[in-house]
């Protein structure tokens, strides 16, 4: 019965993903047909205008897929290791931390290469995540959802003011930053994707390898210890994978919020908390949802487009509020 459910979830996920990819490539300021897509992909007929349109939309779509999958999986990992249902890169302030470091990079070190963006974002995200988590763990009861959310919001507030201090004096920094900050998956190139892919794949594979340990950790710390699990190590590796996944995406796309919160929740409600399945299906649905958000942004933002970061916040914030509403009072 359960097996059936999981198969259905996967099948639907893959169908949705394929459909969203097709829509993302065909829909836009210039609509193209399926035959053009095939031409575009296989490089036939390269002088036709439609094929060029397709070629331009492919990196964006692929990147959306990777970014959505990375953010959802990062959400799964963070929720599991903090044992906290509302952990998400944006709630934890990780996005803002990455932003601050990138701004400092733009303003003082004149960073330009994408790899530098990614490295500096990783450092910023890691420091912020550790800081927020430790801040929330002070006092009784460890990092409860309310303490974690408030610590994240407070640290984000603080970092946002710092960001403005660096951005304001220099209008060129402001322009670069303003467009990066909103969170868009447009404007990525094939080179960016090739750069991103090794990190993403490595992090996802390692998380999958950890998934049995993560399952055990869900039981209780004592049981996990009794079963011979090194909790600290598992947590540490999972945290690093999570931070890599969200910071590399953030570095290239800007902060995209709430994907990591929404998707794992929906998936967990359906397939349960077996991490292997959770991680894989969150990845599939996360990719699909981000691509759909991007397409919606193109529809709603006409004649220009609405960045996917805005779209995911507009969809995700109500989901967040819904989760808070549903949660039992004591567990907050």
């Amino acid at each position, binding site marked *: 019965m359960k097996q059936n459910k999981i198969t259905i979830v996967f099948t639907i996920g893959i169908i949705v993903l394929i459909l969203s990819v097709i829509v993302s490539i065909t829909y836009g300021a210039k609509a193209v047909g399926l035959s053009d897509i095939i031409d575009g992909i296989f490089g036939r007929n390269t002088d036709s205008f439609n094929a060029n349109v397709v070629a331009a939309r492919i990196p964006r779509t692929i990147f959306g897929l990777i970014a959505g999958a990375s953010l959802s999986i990062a959400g799964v990992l963070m929720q599991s290791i903090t044992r906290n249902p*509302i952990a998400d890169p*944006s*709630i934890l302030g990780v996005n803002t931390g990455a932003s601050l470091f990138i701004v400092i990079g733009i303003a003082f070190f004149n960073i330009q290469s994408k790899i530098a963006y990614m490295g500096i974002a990783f450092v910023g995200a890691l420091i912020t995540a550790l800081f927020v988590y430790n*801040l*929330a763990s*002070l*006092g*009784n*009861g460890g990092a*409860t*959802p*309310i*303490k974690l*959310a*408030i*610590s994240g*919001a*407070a*640290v984000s*507030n*603080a*970092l*946002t*003011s*710092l960001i*403005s*201090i660096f951005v*304001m*004096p220099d209008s060129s920094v*402001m322009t670069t930053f*303003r467009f990066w900050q*909103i969170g868009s998956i447009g404007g990525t190139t094939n080179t960016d994707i090739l750069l991103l892919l090794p990190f993403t794949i490595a992090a996802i594979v390692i998380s999958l390898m950890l998934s049995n340990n993560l399952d055990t950790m869900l039981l209780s710390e004592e049981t996990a210890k009794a079963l011979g699990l090194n909790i600290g190590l598992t947590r540490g590796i999972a945290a690093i994978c999570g931070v890599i996944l969200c910071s590399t995406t953030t570095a290239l796309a800007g902060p995209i*919020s*709430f994907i990591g919160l929404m998707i794992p929740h929906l998936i967990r409600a359906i397939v349960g908390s077996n991490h292997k399945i959770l991680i894989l299906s969150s990845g599939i649905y996360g990719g699909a949802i981000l691509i759909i958000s991007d397409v919606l942004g193109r529809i709603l*933002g006409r004649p*220009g487009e*609405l*960045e996917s*970061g*805005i779209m995911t*916040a*507009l969809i*995700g*914030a*109500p989901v*967040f*509020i819904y989760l*808070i*509403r549903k*949660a039992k*009072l004591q567990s*907050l």
Partner: protein
Amino acid sequence: MIDNSKIFANIKSHRIKYKIILTIMAIILLILVCLNMTIGEKNYSLMEVIHTLLSSENNYIIVKLRLPRTLAGIFCGIAFAIAGNTFQTLLGNSLASPDIIGVSSGSTVAAVFCILFLNLNRGLVSFVAVLAGAASALLIYKLASKDGYSTNRLILTGIGAQAFFSALINWMIKKASEYDVPTAMRWMSGNLNGITTDTLPLLIVIVLLALITMTYLSNSLQALELGENYATVLGVNVDVTRSLLILISVVLIAFATAISGPISSIAFLSGPIAGRLCSKNQINTIPAALTGAILVLAGDFIGQNLLPTRYPVGIITGILGAPYLVYLLIKQNKGGSI
């Protein structure tokens, strides 16, 4: 047997301390007003400024730029501070200030929309901002109260609402034309640039009225702080008082936001600072108001004159407020009050 004379002596010394602190704050505020009026791109002596103001001489810099700026700073500061203080007292948590739980951004969304897209005049903008602020406060409250009200849930819901509103603000700023960006930036942190005299009278009247009402209601507020049951026993009509206070606070926030943008941290900081200076066991409406005005004027002075680049006041107050916010969080988490 309780020694009454000792208690009274204590209360008396408390009152004297309170008065001394108020006087010192008033003096600091006065000094800041003088600094803001005299120093800038062009410096004037204090006598020149007073002379200009008294003789209705037409000095553009003093009358048209610095006077409205200083007045707006004072009254927006007061508005944010007493509104924040009221929220914090009512909800029993310093983190529950309107800038953290999304009420301010509700007003901001409306104000940005009216200014960037509808080109409404400022009076109308304030009105719409008030409505939107009230609506978002009500919405957040309704969403947070399912099977019983809980401040924790309210704060979390507020954080979600805040994220939603920020996305809307970002969207509008992105849609606005390139040369509106400086105006738009005001809506992200708060700014006293370009304030004109015509918007001020209404703000001043509203802030003063609110200040009077709140001082009058502060006994009831104090009773509410003890808990609803005590308040009812003490003869306070809990629902009416609470709704009235929240309504006044939302009006204040919305008006001030429509004029200066959401000046960061003022709503959140002033109450706790005033509480620390005076006494935590009373409602510090007046001290909080003075703290707010002092913070805004000081922030504006620092942002305009003391740094290599000119920064809007909201960025300075944001930087000042951030460490305090984190400190408060550490204290609160350690104390286990959440």
